[in-house]
C-alpha cells in the first residue's frame, strides 16, 4: 500500500542524508531493513503508536542542535570494576576503552564483523528487530539496522568476572549517532551489561539480545542527564527456556526520550523483568513503550515503571502484555505510576493486555497523582523539613522500580543519582 504523501516525503528526506556502510556479512540484513523502512515509512504524528510522542525531531534530516553538558558530579558506576567500551558521538574510541579481552566473553565491533563473511552475529543481526516489527511497526529500529555503522557484538559463553560497561559520550553539538549492538548469552552463561552517558545530540540505538536456555542477563542503563539531547532506543530481547532477563533504565532529563522494549518469551519457564525510573523537569518528554509477548508455558513477566514529573514535564507509558494461544500458566504483571509534583506536568498512559490463553494470571495497574498530603504532614509533624520530606516520599515512590536491580552496588549508584537530582530540582 502506498504511504501517505507526508510520510513518503519525510522518509525520503531522512534517507537522503544517510549512506549504508560497506557491510560485508550484514549486507543482506541491512538491505532487508531498508526495504522495511521504505514499506512502513518513518513514524508520523498521526500514527497510533506515536499518539503521545511527536516523532518529528527524531526523523528530521538533520539532528537538532544540543548544547554539551558539563557536570561536576562523579561519573556513574565510576568506582565499579568493569570493562569499559567507549563511544564518542556514536563512534568507538579505542583510546578511551579498555582492552576488549575478558574471560567468558568475546567482543567484536560491528565494523569488524562487517568485513568478515562468517561470524556468529550474522545469524542475529537484524533478525530480532525484524521479528519485533509485528504486530506493531518500529521503523526507527529498521532504519538503525540498515544504517548503523558502529556498535559491538558481545558473545557471552561463561560468567565474566565483571560487568561490561558501554559508555556514551557527547562531544559535538550537532552529532547524530546510530549504534547497533548484538548480545548473545549462551546456555548457562551470565553477564551484567551497563550502559550510560548522553551519546549524542540525537541518538538512535538498537540492541538485539538473544538469551539461550538457562542464560542470565542483567541490564542496567542510565540515560544522559544533558537536557537538550534526543534519543530513540530499541531493545529486542528473545528468551529461551528457563532464561532470565532483568533490565532497569534510569532516565534523568533529556528533552525527548523514547525507549522501546520488545521482549519475547519463547522458552518455557523464562523470566523477564523490565523496569524504569524517570525524573523530569521542565520541557522534558519521556516515553516508555514496552511490548512483552508470552509464547511459552509458565513464564513470568514484570513491568514496573515510575515517573516523577514537574514544571510541565510529560511522561508517557505504553505497555502491553500479549499472551499467545497456548502460553498457559503465564504470570504477567505491569504497573505504571506517576508522581506529578505540580499542576503543569502530565502523565499519559496506555497499559494494554491482549490474552488468548485461559489459564493465566495477568494484571496491570496504573495510577497518577500528587504527593500524599497525609504522609507529608506526618513527616513534617515529626520535624522533617518539607523539602526533605518531599525527597523522602519521592524516593520511596521510585524505590519499587529501583528494587528490580539485583546488584546492591548498582542499585546504590542509581539511588545516588536520583538523590542528586532531587536535591537540585526540588
Amino acid at each position, binding site marked *: 500500500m502506498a504511504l501517505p504523501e507526508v510520510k513518503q516525503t519525510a522518509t525520503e528526506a531522512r534517507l537522503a542524508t544517510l549512506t549504508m556502510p560497506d557491510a560485508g556479512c550484514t549486507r543482506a540484513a541491512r538491505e532487508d531493513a531498508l526495504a522495511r523502512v521504505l514499506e512502513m515509512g518513518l513514524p508520523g504524528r498521526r500514527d497510533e503508536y506515536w499518539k503521545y510522542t511527536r516523532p518529528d525531531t527524531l526523523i528530521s534530516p538533520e539532528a537538532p542542535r544540543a548544547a554539551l553538558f558539563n557536570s561536576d558530579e562523579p561519573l556513574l558506576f565510576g568506582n565499579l570494576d568493569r570493562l569499559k567500551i567507549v563511544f564518542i558521538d556514536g563512534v568507538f574510541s579505542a583510546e578511551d576503552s579498555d582492552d576488549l579481552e575478558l574471560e567468558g566473553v568475546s567482543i567484536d565491533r560491528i565494523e569488524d564483523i562487517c568485513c568478515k563473511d562468517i561470524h556468529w552475529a550474522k545469524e542475529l543481526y537484524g533478525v530480532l528487530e525484524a521479528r519485533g516489527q509485528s504486530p506493531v511497526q518500529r521503523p526507527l529500529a529498521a532504519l538503525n539496522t540498515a544504517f548503523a555503522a558502529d556498535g559491538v557484538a558481545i558473545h557471552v559463553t561463561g560468567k565474566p568476572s565483571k560487568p561490561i560497561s558501554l559508555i556514551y559520550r557527547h562531544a559535538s553539538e550537532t552529532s547524530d549517532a546510530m549504534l547497533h549492538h548484538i548480545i548473545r548469552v549462551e546456555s548457562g552463561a551470565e553477564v551484567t551489561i551497563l550502559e550510560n552517558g548522553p551519546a549524542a545530540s540525537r541518538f538512535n540505538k538498537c540492541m538485539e539480545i538473544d538469551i539461550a536456555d538457562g542464560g542470565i542477563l542483567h541490564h542496567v542503563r542510565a540515560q544522559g542527564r544533558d537536557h537538550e539531547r534526543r534519543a530513540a532506543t530499541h531493545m529486542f530481547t528473545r528468551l529461551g527456556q528457563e532464561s532470565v532477563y532483568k533490565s532497569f533504565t534510569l532516565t534523568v532529563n533529556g528533552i525527548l526520550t523514547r525507549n522501546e522494549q520488545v521482549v519475547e518469551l519463547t522458552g518455557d519457564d523464562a523470566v523477564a523483568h523490565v523496569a524504569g525510573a524517570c525524573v523530569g523537569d521542565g520541557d522534558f518528554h519521556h516515553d516508555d513503550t514496552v511490548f512483552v509477548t508470552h509464547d511459552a508455558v509458565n513464564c513470568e513477566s514484570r513491568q514496573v515503571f515510575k515517573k516523577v514529573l514537574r514544571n510541565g514535564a510529560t511522561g508517557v507509558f505504553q505497555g502491553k502484555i500479549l499472551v499467545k494461544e497456548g502460553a498457559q500458566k503465564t504470570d504477567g504483571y505491569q504497573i505504571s505510576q506517576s508522581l506529578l509534583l505540580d499542576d503543569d506536568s*502530565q502523565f499519559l498512559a496506555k497499559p*494494554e*493486555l491482549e*490474552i488468548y490463553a*485461559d489459564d493465566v494470571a495477568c494484571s496491570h495497574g496504573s495510577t*497518577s497523582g500528587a504527593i500524599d498530603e497525609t504522609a507529608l504532614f506526618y513527616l513534617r509533624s515529626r520535624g522533617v523539613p518539607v523539602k526533605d520530606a518531599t525527597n523522602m516520599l519521592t524516593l520511596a515512590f521510585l524505590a519499587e522500580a529501583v528494587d528490580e536491580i539485583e546488584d546492591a552496588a548498582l542499585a546504590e549508584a542509581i539511588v545516588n543519582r536520583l538523590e542528586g537530582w532531587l536535591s537540585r530540582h526540588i
Partner: protein
Amino acid sequence: MAALDQTQVKEGVDQETVDAVREVGTYKYGWDTDIEMEYAPKGVNPDIVRLISEKNEEPEWMTEWRLAAFERWTQIEEPNWAMVHYPKIDFQDQYYYARPKSMEEKPKSLDEVDPKLLATYEKLGIPLKEQMILAGVEGAEDMPAEGRKVAVDAVFDSVSVGTTFQDELAKHGVIFCSISEAIREHPELVKKYLGSVVPVSDNFYATLNSAVFSDGSFVYIPPGVRCPMELSTYFRINAENTGQFERTLIIADKGSYVSYLEGCTAPRRDTAQLHAAVVEIIIEEDAEVKYSTVQNWFPGDEEGKGGIYNFVTKRADCRGDRSKVMWTQVETGSAVTWKYPSCILRGDESQGEFYSIAITNNYQQADTGTKMVHLGKNTKSRIVSKGISAGKAQNTYRGLVSMHPKAKDSRNYTQCDSLLIGDKCGAHTVPYIEVRNNSSRVEHEATTSKVDDDQLFYCRQRGMDEEEAVALVVNGFCKDVLQALPMEFAMEAQQLVAISLEGSVG
C-alpha cells in the same frame, strides 16, 4: 444444539426439564413476525434521506440537517481500529427504512392494531397490559397497573409502534414520545439539543445515523421533576436485510431525575444485520440520569453465521454543576459490538459512572468500554467493567480517562476484569489514561483470569453440575455490575449471563 436434541431422557428427568434446558440453550428471541412491510428502496443516497424525512413528516430544517450529515458521511472512512473483524459491509445493499404496513396510520383502537404486532410483543414477554398500550390503544392507561409502572416506547424496525403512559407523564410535565413525534411537536427542544452531544460529524456510524435515523425515543424531564416511573425503549429488528438506525435524545433539566431502560432483540437469520444507533443525553444542574441497557440482539449461530453488527454511539453531557449520569450495560448479544457509552463531565462536581458486563460466546466479538472526559473541577468517575469470553469469542475493553488541566481535584477509579472460559477465546484491555493536572487522582486496575478451579470444585461438591457452577461463579464475578441495575433488569440479566454461556463448558 444438535447435541441436546439427541439427549436421551434419563430416568427421573421429565420431558419438561429437557424442554426447559433446550429453550435456554438457544437464542430465545430468534423467531420472526410474518407481517406485511413497507420498504424504501435498498441503498442510501440523498433521495432515501429525503424519503425518510418525508415519511416522518419532518420540517424542512430537519431534512437539511440530515442531508448535511449524509454529505459529510460520504467523506469519512469507516473506522478500523477496533479489535473486531467482519466482512466489509455493503452499505448500498440494505434497506434503511421498513415499517409494518398497518402502521401507515396510527391505530385508534385495539381492533385496528395488527394482531401480529400484538402477538410479537406478547411473545417478547412484555406484559399484556403494557402491550395494549404499546399498540396505541386509547383508554388502556386507566386500567390498574400491576406492580411498578414502566412506560415503554416500542420501536419495530424503523418506526415507533407506540408509547405508553404518555398522559400520566404529561401531568408531571414529562415529555416521552418517539423522536419523530418530538421533531413535529417540540421542534424548539429538538433543534436546541439534537447533535449537541454527538455532533453530526462525530464518527462514521454516528454520521450515517444522523442522515438516516428513522425513529427512536425522546425524553424531556422539566426542572425539579423526579420522573414518576421508569422509562424504557424496546427495540425490535424484524425485517431482513434492514438496518435499524434509531436516535434517542434525553434531556434532564435542572434538578430532575430519570431512570431509563433499553432492551433489544432480533430474529435469527443467516445474514448479518446492521444496527447503528445514537444516544444523546443532556444533564443540567443537579439532575441525574440512569441509563440501563440489556443488549440481546441475535448473536449469530454457533458457527458464527448471521447476527447483528451493533455499532453504537452513546454519550452523556453533564453540563450543569453537580449533575450525574450512570451507564449500566449488559451486553450479551450481537455478533459484533462496537460501543463506548461516554461521559463528558463538564459541570463542576459532576459525576459519571459506567458499569458493564460484556459476555461473548461462540464467534461473537465485542469491543466496548467508555470515555470519561473530566473538564470541570471536583468531578468524579468510576468504571467497573467485566468481560467474559467463551468459545471462540474475542472481548475487548477499550476506554479513555482524561483529566484536563482545569479539572482540579478530580477523581477516577477504573477496574476492568476479564474472565476466560476455554482456551480458544481472547480477552483484551486497551485503556488510555491522560492526566494533565496533579491534584487529580487516577487509578486503573485490570486483571485477567479463568474460572477458579477451587470455586468450581466447591460448587460441584454441593451437587451442582458444571454449567450451573460456572454460571454461579460468573454471576459472582459480575456482582458489582448486576447490583447497579434496576430491579426489572437485574433478574433478567442474571439469567442472561447463564444462558449466554450455555454450551461453553466442557
